[in-house]
């Protein structure tokens, strides 16, 4: 399931939902991204393309690993320091697929999902620049290995 929304989400409830009623689920791996630091930031996104790109990522993850279910929730709008931005949670029979698919999804989400961050600081607001490191992390998954680790 993919959700793009303004509202906050409850990671515990989302994880519980992934394993409820699924006798085959042996592992749920998850990631929560937060607004780091002391300032607020505003997330702008491209409605339509966001859902499309996230759905394509879900499709890739399901083809590549034996997944039973997954949830991605990404917020947009103005978020305060410490607030939750994104959740990736993956359910599988065993932990290797759950861990790897979860990392794959967040690594690729950071390079493919059309969001842009405007950071507030005492001296004004600035658009956060994409990081070369994000591209490198995402590209690790393309060399065909099971694990994205160097």
């Amino acid at each position: 399931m993919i959700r793009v929304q303004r509202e906050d989400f409850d990671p515990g409830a989302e994880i519980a939902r992934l394993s409820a009623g699924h006798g085959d689920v042996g592992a749920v791996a998850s990631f929560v991204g937060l607004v780091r630091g002391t300032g607020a930031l505003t997330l702008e996104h491209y409605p339509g393309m966001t859902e499309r790109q996230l759905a394509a990522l879900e499709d890739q993850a399901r083809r590549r690993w034996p997944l039973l279910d997954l949830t991605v929730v990404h917020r947009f709008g103005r978020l305060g320091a410490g607030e939750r931005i994104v959740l990736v949670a993956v359910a599988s029979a065993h932990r290797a697929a759950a861990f790897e698919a979860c990392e794959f999804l967040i690594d690729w989400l950071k390079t493919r999902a059309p969001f842009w961050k405007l950071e507030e600081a005492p001296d004004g607001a600035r658009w956060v620049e994409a990081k070369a490191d994000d591209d490198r992390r995402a590209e690790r998954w393309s060399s065909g290995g099971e694990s994205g680790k160097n």
Partner: protein
Amino acid sequence: MKLLYFAWLRTRIGTGEEDLTPPPQVATVAQLVEWLKMRGPGYADAFANPALVRAAVNQDYAPFDAPVAATDEVAFFPPVTGGGVEGEGAP
């Protein structure tokens, strides 16, 4: 053709969305960028450094040599910065 601009492109151009009719010789994303730059200083500023601009045609990422048609939705934006945590070693 529906044009969409995000983040600082939107700020420099002054709008996030517009409907335009480029001339028929505008057949690729790159040609569209060149045509847009001539519309005013905000556009020229937004597209001054193509290395900082990404494009999508009909909500799929497109290289600058991708074709564009009059009925397409074309968006321009900086490299994306979604997700939660800053990259390792970020200040």
